[in-house]
């Protein structure tokens, strides 16, 4: 038994393959969430301010992206654009690099678009929950809208949004498995291939789960720190 595992993991090189997959997962997950979050904040503000038209557009975007399976988002993004990207790239003589890098780029864009749609709702909810009085205090001190937002609204809203952002991150890191449809060998796909051809599904899926768990455990520590930081001043005692 142990010997079998040794052969599989070391001699056949699956450990390395899984780690490589984990690297892709982390890279795409982190980039996706960071880009998604960064673009979600301005969009959430549009929603929160109820700017006509723009707010409805953001709403539609977020409902559609949250409403359809992530796989389709990637499918459409990738297969819908790959033709003309290929053409443009060839025109400039970068056909090879485009073909090589494009799945990766689309993967990140798709993951970012998905996590952004989720983050928009989380942040909007948090923005709405900030007590109006505290914003009025800032306004009456003639802090500019921008400053009011960055110095008062955002810190208070982030405190409320933290749990939701954490959820989005945990979801996104696992959503990265979707990029396998454009040919990227991330962790889940590597595990699936290994499970299929070695006929040890339980071993490989559990290994993949353990790796995901390790990633989220590390991130959980960071989130706990952030929670402490944002909660300063709130608890009596």
């Amino acid at each position, binding site marked *: 038994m142990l010997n079998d595992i040794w052969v599989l993991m070391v001699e056949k090189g699956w450990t390395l393959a899984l780690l*490589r997959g984990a690297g*892709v997962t982390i*890279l795409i997950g982190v980039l996706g969430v960071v880009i998604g979050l960064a673009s979600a904040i301005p969009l959430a503000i549009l929603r929160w301010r109820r700017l006509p038209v723009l707010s409805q557009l953001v709403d539609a975007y977020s409902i559609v992206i949250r409403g359809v399976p992530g796989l389709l988002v990637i499918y459409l993004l990738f297969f819908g654009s*790959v033709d003309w990207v290929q053409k443009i790239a060839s025109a400039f003589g970068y056909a090879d690099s485009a073909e090589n890098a494009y799945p990766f780029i689309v993967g990140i864009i798709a993951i970012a678009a998905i996590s952004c749609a989720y983050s928009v709702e989380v942040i909007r909810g948090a923005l709405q929950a900030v007590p109006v009085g505290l914003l009025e205090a800032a306004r009456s001190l003639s802090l500019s809208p921008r400053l009011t937002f960055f110095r008062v609204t955002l810190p208070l809203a982030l405190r409320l949004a933290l749990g939701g952002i954490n959820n989005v991150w945990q979801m996104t890191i696992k959503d990265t498995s979707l990029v396998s*449809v*454009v040919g990227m060998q991330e962790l889940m796909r590597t595990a699936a*291939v290994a*499970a299929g*051809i070695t006929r040890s*599904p339980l071993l490989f899926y559990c290994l993949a789960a353990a790796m995901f768990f390790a990633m989220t455990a590390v991130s959980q520590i960071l989130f706990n720190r952030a929670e402490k930081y944002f909660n300063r001043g709130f608890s009596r005692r």
Partner: protein
Amino acid sequence: LVLMAAMGFARADDGVLRVGTEGDAPQFSMADANGNVTGFDADIANGICAELKVKCKFVVQTFSSLVPSMDKDRFDIIISGLGITDERMKKIDYSIPYATTPQYFVVPKDSPLVGLKSLAEIEKALAGKTIGVVNGTTYAKFIKKHIPTADLKTYDATTQQNSDLGTGRLDAAFGDSPTWVDFLGSPDGANFARIDVKVTGADDHEALGYGMGVGLRKSNTELKAKLDAALCEMINNGKVKAASENWFKDDYTIPCKK
């Protein structure tokens, strides 16, 4: 390094034939930890490339993205044990069929079903029973058509189907011969036996198709002609037979009829 590993694509220059394959189908298409593909499909692909005097470049992708990817010119052909059916031919073109595997039902060893003698008997005996098949095949259609009262379960992978056989969730499973040789020979399969009724495409071409072929984009007649010729050559010179016997311990070659 990660980046490089993540995108194993090369350009379709002359001299390179890009082959899309699943990579996680035992015996057919198996990608190892470094992305090298082996198996029956790989042998067929390499054989074709040798005939055409080009280099094979494998692209390993999930089953559901194979067809759209080929449509978008991510690779030129699909060799992934694709069964040829009329339905599927609406979407992609096929080469001539080069092999076909017979299908069998598998049931617990101590079941009275083991001794059944014909497809008609099986159809009667399995009415209302729970039957498993694997996705990516057309067997579901076959079962639906022939045993409409059966409770049909579709699995993403053979191992999952076999696991449910083991736990008694399935009364029977329907699949191709290579899978069963593999399963019945393993410790898990010790309590099971196959019903010795060979089901082939000939029993129902509409549901079970005409055997395996190489998939390619629609109306790529030039390539199709080349592939057909290459396959025919391989069938005739016994390369397909060798590959089949190597991986399946049996010869499933379909003769080439021009």
